């Protein structure tokens, strides 16, 4: 099988959640891939399956959730086929994660230094003898006063400091892939920029690939090499960042970009009509079709495949296959 990325290749990932309301079809065959040292952005609205994708890749989906189908190729292993023991050796060592709420993501009863040390020892990246030293070194990398911070409990840290500790913990083991699940959403704007810069510097120096999950187009533009746009459990458009901003093709991506406020263009903000579909009973075919201005019969029946329509630009939309992707131009609007 040919791999689309030399680090990660996720194929047709499907995740469901059993709830009292019924079966939630959270991921509807997600496809995404990454090269080594690449920075991939995953964008989409709340509930579109960004975080579920990341958690499914790490096999952290808990009851009542279940991965029903798909492959997650990480280098040469399908993570979904590994035993739980083998998987614990991937987590934290090869793939690390940081989260949206740094303060509640740290265990309140342990000192931050201990939590980093524990990670190092668990991944065998330090020995009990030099662990303390390593912790201080790593805390230094993330720009903190190591001797003070390592003895502090999470409730004594500010949000920004806690996220730095999380980053220190995640990168301490030199993982090949760092998954950052909305790492700045819960922080003050000024701190957001610092954290983003820190992430950028460190991962560049250490050569980690980064999967940046966010709903902030600004972060995507600034940080990512390539972007996956997700909608209701599907990857609908995949393109290099610049290409995506200049030439968005999927009607949802276009809507998403038009909904971002920009300086110097007042009054142009446009919302996408309708709301995110209920995933207990999602629309047949393309899940975006009820909100799409261009939908036709085919869209309502079968989910369009994700096809490469120009170099490195993939779209899951029948419009492109019909008349060579003119949807943006057809509408007669400048996309961005």
């Amino acid at each position, binding site marked *: 099988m040919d791999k689309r990325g030399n680090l990660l290749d996720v194929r047709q990932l499907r995740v469901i959640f059993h709830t009292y309301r019924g079966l939630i079809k959270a991921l509807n065959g997600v496809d995404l891939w990454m090269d080594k040292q690449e920075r991939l952005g995953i964008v989409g609205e709340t509930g579109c399956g960004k975080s579920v994708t990341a958690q499914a890749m790490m096999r952290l989906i808990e009851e009542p959730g279940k991965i029903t189908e798909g492959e997650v190729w990480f280098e040469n292993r399908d993570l979904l086929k590994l035993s739980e023991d083998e998987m614990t050796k991937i*987590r934290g060592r090869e793939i690390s994660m940081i989260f949206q709420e740094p303060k509640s993501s*740290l265990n309140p009863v342990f000192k931050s230094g201990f939590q980093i040390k524990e990670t190092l020892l668990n991944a065998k990246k330090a020995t009990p003898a030099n662990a303390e030293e390593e912790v201080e070194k790593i805390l230094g990398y993330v720009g903190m006063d190591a001797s003070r911070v390592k003895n502090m409990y999470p409730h004594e840290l500010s949000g920004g400091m806690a996220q730095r500790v999380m980053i220190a913990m995640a990168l301490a083991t030199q993982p090949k892939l760092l998954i950052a699940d909305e790492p700045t959403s819960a922080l003050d704007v000024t701190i957001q920029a610092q954290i983003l810069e820190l992430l950028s510097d460190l991962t560049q120096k250490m050569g980690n690939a980064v999967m940046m999950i966010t709903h902030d187009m600004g972060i995507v533009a600034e940080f990512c090499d390539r972007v996956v746009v997700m909608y209701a459990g599907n990857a609908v458009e995949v393109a290099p960042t610049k290409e995506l901003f200049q030439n968005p093709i999927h009607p949802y991506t276009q809507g998403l970009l038009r909904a971002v406020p920009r300086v110097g263009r007042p009054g142009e903000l446009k919302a996408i009509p309708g709301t995110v579909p209920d995933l207990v009973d999602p629309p047949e075919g393309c899940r975006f079709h009820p909100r799409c201005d261009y939908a036709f019969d085919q869209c309502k029946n079968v989910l369009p495949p994700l096809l490469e329509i120009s170099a490195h630009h993939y779209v899951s939309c029948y419009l492109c296959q019909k008349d060579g992707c003119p949807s943006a131009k057809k509408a007669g609007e400048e996309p961005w």
Partner: protein
Amino acid sequence: MNIWKYLIKRILLMALVLFGVACIVFFIAHVIPADPVGAILGGNAPPEKIDKLRAQLGYDRPLIEQFFSFLKGAVVGDFGVSIKTNNPVMTDIGIYFPATIELALVAIIISIVLGVFLGILSAVHRNKMVDNFSRVFSILGVSMPVFWIGLILILIFYYKLDWLPGGGRINFFLDPPQRITGMYLFDSLFTGNWEVFRDALLHILLPAFVLGYNSTASIARITRSSMLEVLGQEYIRTAKAKGLKKRLVIYRHALRNALIPTITIIGLVFGGLLEGAVLTETVFSWPGLGRYITAGLLSLDYPAVMGGTIYIAFIYSLANLAVDFLYALLDPRMRT
């Protein structure tokens, strides 16, 4: 460090609580419309004899004066002389209390070990067989009356199976161990008297289990629910994403947080144990403080009742002081 300040604050609060208990106990004892002097001398005693005894016992003094002399005595542990046994109340407590505290300690140990274990098992295997079993076990524990379980267990294990003795602290034909603490288990252990130790252990098993069953159930239920809550926290996801083994995630990261509410319950049920001992001691003919106080109450032996009650309140406060200390030890957020 802050923890000392915290503890001193708790000790002062404890003194305040004990003062409150002393007030309540004293005034309730004097509000009860019964006359101890009459009870001692009988209904046909001549008035001058009654006055003499009343003066001798100090009941002719103004109430407030009696209260202050009672308080003064209580501070140094002098609760006066028992009307019934003619011993200083403190001496009687010294005789009867070790049996009660031994029973309560064994009961609390059984219920902590069993309760916490069942609670964890229940939470980790939620809605599986183990969970259902432990939930039924818990419901039975909180809903069955102590004396009834006691009688049923005596019927099964003593009368039918003859595996365990039916009552008392020790076999009639054995000499109690040399008195060091008054607790047979400890004393026989210290003196290396294995035969007595074994016999005392067999005697204490049933009453301790009966006494502890109710608290086992409470502890199991609280541990289950707090464990379930903690297992859903974000720092548990972090611990898993770090690549820690399930065992470490549960026993290091989750349990320490989940134990905080459990500790509160342990402090509270310990009071219940001392109180429930009255019934258990009666069913199992266990010569403890509970029976001493009940007997005192029936014969209007006020010094014995007040002294015994305050002593138990004191022990209860000590247990809760230990709980507060454990709190601070477990949860760094409490130390401020």
